[in-house]
């Protein structure tokens, strides 16, 4: 942990990140050849000077498609050395650190792969300990016809996971609020229309399509110079997989508390269907994204971030894998162990959400909001 904190950026290094981004935006603003690529360049063109907050905003509007890098007449080895995706990736990662809470945990962003493994082991241990604490030892290895609450009472599960989840959501919302305060000076103009617009952009991942002539999406230059939609597809699988799994859990909660219908739910029930489909998305999407990251152009990739990105994706994959395994073997004696492992990974996911790659969703959305608001003016 101490080592991780040391790697967090000091003040002067942060100034360097902002200065470099400012230098690049000045060059880009005098060139403007990239205005057709994504949201960043039209957003940049709306202003002539760039405060640090503006740069944090633009960095989070950039999604690292690399289109501008390959098209750039000033890319290294040109003496202007313009590499916007890389400079923005560095700055973006730094906004993740700067806007999380509490500040001393910010260093976790650096060593995220390690953190995820530690928390997962800890989470599984904790869940096992809880089971042993509340249940006779033989319960975990017994057969319960898919009834999870025979192993862990519903209330224990709901309160422990609920409180961790609420903590994560609280930190994320706090980060969102602080980021907006610093990067969106005119948020008073927020309208239902700009919220709807930004939400649309986020849901369809508009800019990942690469922009094209009237709806003809060319795709992004990721993972290589040729145009491709592959990253958007994997990202959508991850995103909708996550949302479906989340919907499955929420629906289960509604079933339990509103209708008094207790788990286990049948294989064709809505919560299980959502969870299964979402789970499959969360197997393919994260694996695909990890693979793309491995083969991506090293000239634009920011290596220091790899741990954070991969840690989060690996965790999503494991949550899904263990969840599906639990579903498959829930009527056997392996259920207790699988449940402990699955819940351990879920606990790790919740705990690391505010300190890992998940936060990009929060700041990207804030950036999309400002973008939509300014587009209308």
């Amino acid at each position, binding site marked *: 942990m101490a080592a991780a904190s040391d790697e967090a950026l000091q003040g002067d290094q942060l100034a360097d990140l902002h200065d470099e981004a400012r230098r690049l935006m000045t060059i880009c603003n*005098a060139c403007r050849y990239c205005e057709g690529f994504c949201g960043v360049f039209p957003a940049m063109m709306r202003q002539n000077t760039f405060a640090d907050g503006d740069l944090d905003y633009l960095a989070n509007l950039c999604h690292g498609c690399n289109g501008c890098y390959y098209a750039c007449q000033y890319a290294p080895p040109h003496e202007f050395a313009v590499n916007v995706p890389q400079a923005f990736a560095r700055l973006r990662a730094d906004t993740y650190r700067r806007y999380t809470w509490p500040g001393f945990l910010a260093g976790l962003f650096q060593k995220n792969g390690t953190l995820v493994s530690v928390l997962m082991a800890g989470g599984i241990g904790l869940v096992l300990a809880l089971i042993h604490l509340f249940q006779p030892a033989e319960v975990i290895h017994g057969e319960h016809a898919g009834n999870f609450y025979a192993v862990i009472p519903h209330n224990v599960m709901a309160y422990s996971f609920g409180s961790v989840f609420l903590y994560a959501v609280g930190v994320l919302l706090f980060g969102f609020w602080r980021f907006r305060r610093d990067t969106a000076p005119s948020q008073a103009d927020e309208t239902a229309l700009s919220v709807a617009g930004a939400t649309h952009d986020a849901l369809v991942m508009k800019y990942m399509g690469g922009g094209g002539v009237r709806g003809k999406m060319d795709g992004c230059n990721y993972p290589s*110079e040729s145009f491709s939609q592959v990253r958007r597809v994997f990202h959508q699988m991850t995103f909708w997989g996550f949302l479906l799994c989340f919907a499955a859990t929420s629906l289960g909660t509604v079933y339990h508390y509103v209708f008094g219908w207790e788990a286990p739910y049948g294989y064709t029930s809505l919560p299980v269907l959502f969870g299964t489909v979402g789970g499959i998305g969360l197997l393919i999407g994260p694996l695909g994204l990890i693979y793309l990251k491995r083969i991506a152009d090293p000239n634009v990739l920011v290596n220091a971030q790899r741990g954070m990105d991969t840690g989060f994706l690996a965790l999503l994959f494991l949550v899904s894998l263990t969840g599906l395994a639990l579903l498959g073997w829930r009527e056997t004696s392996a259920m207790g162990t699988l449940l402990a492992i699955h819940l351990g990974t879920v606990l790790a996911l919740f705990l690391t959400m505010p300190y890992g790659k998940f936060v990009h969703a929060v700041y990207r959305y804030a950036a999309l909001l400002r973008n939509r608001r300014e587009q209308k003016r």
Partner: protein
Amino acid sequence: MKGLPEKVDVIVVGGGGAAMAAALTARERGASVLVLEAAPKDFRGGNTRHVRNIRYAHDAATDFVTGPYPVDEYYDDLLRVTQGNTDKDLSRFLIEKSLDAADWMAARGVKFQPPLSGTIGLDRTNAFFKGGGKAVLNAYYATAEKLGIDCRYEAEVMDLKIEDGAFTAARVKYQGQEQTVEARAIVLASGGYQADIDWLKEGWGEAAEGFLIRGTGYNKGRMLRVLMDHGAETAADADQCHAIAIDARSPKCDGGIATRVDCVIYSIMVNRKAQRFYDEGEDIWPKRYAIWGRLLAKQEDQIAFGIVDAKANDLFMPSLYPPLKADSIRDLAGLLELDPDALEKTVADYNAACRGGGNKDREFKPGVLDGLSTEGLSPAKSNWAQTIDTPPYYGYPLRTGITFTYLGVKVNKEARVQFKGKDGRTVSAANIFAAGEIVSGNILGQGYAGGIGMAIGLVFGRIAGEGAARNASN
């Protein structure tokens, strides 16, 4: 890296838009093609690296142009900017052949963007490349690779073997040694000679030392010289080129579009003596670009300074380098190393002429010819003549930035190089074709219309590639 082949059907010299149009066309017609690009891969593509759009004739609006641009209108525009100084027959041919330019490029992977901000008002006549010229090159080279075209970088053609008016082989410097490559036809798409300052001096004298090269530093005109030495006929004069006013602090070469400064029409332009020397408000486009590069070349040290005040400083595109800034004209003169008294007098005289009567019904309107002119001032400023009186004051140092030279070889409609025959009659080369900047002088005797360079490259490149492939199959 493997060495060069000993023999191919077609050699293409150069690696820019014209070269790749020729290479792709020749390969699509079945010829084996070797592209010899003098620059390293990162700097490939000549001035195409820096272009943004192509001016081409079209009959209707499309996804990326806002309206029709008929052949006749294009031709009239060309006659106007060149003041008739062009091969009229070849020009009209070029424009007619440009009709399918965008389709041809799109079919080879080039992506266009919808007309967006229209910064220079060309969204009807010109199609804009998504990401600019380097993205075009990426698409061309990717297509070339798929088709099996052999592209070599840092491969500099030193000399051509020409016997009885026919090309037989090229001497190529590659990986530290010289080698001979035989071919049945050659396309010279090797650009102008703007990066050879000594050659520029033949047209401009010592002033050429003060020029900056906007485009690639690899265009030194070696092939043009070789052809001229072999008796090729030439087109355009040595002092004709595409030159614009760019920031004096730009790199010597390869600064591209970002170094241009758009302050001129809202400014007063003064020379080293702090004197005005031309009507800054004459026109927006194309004069702002077309004439100021040449005007600066004729000033002392080939430099001048655009002076604006706080009112005008946000009216034009932001610049790459920050302007020099001061709270008084005297202080600004100090920063620009100009005589403070002289600059104060020039600004005062100008301001007095702005306030002179006759303009009472005129309003300052950026973006259109507003007719707000000076009275009794020489030279006049005929539009946007606002007083310079609101601090802070800004100064932009500007120099001549040369994009490309026009002097080149004469070609016919088959893109064949024209040689002087023994009896003084013109003879078309049997298997030597040329395209791009090296033939631009046939079309551009002077002046420029934005995006026409790409059209010259594309049209003659395709024709050259077709002819070369035909030669190879005979």
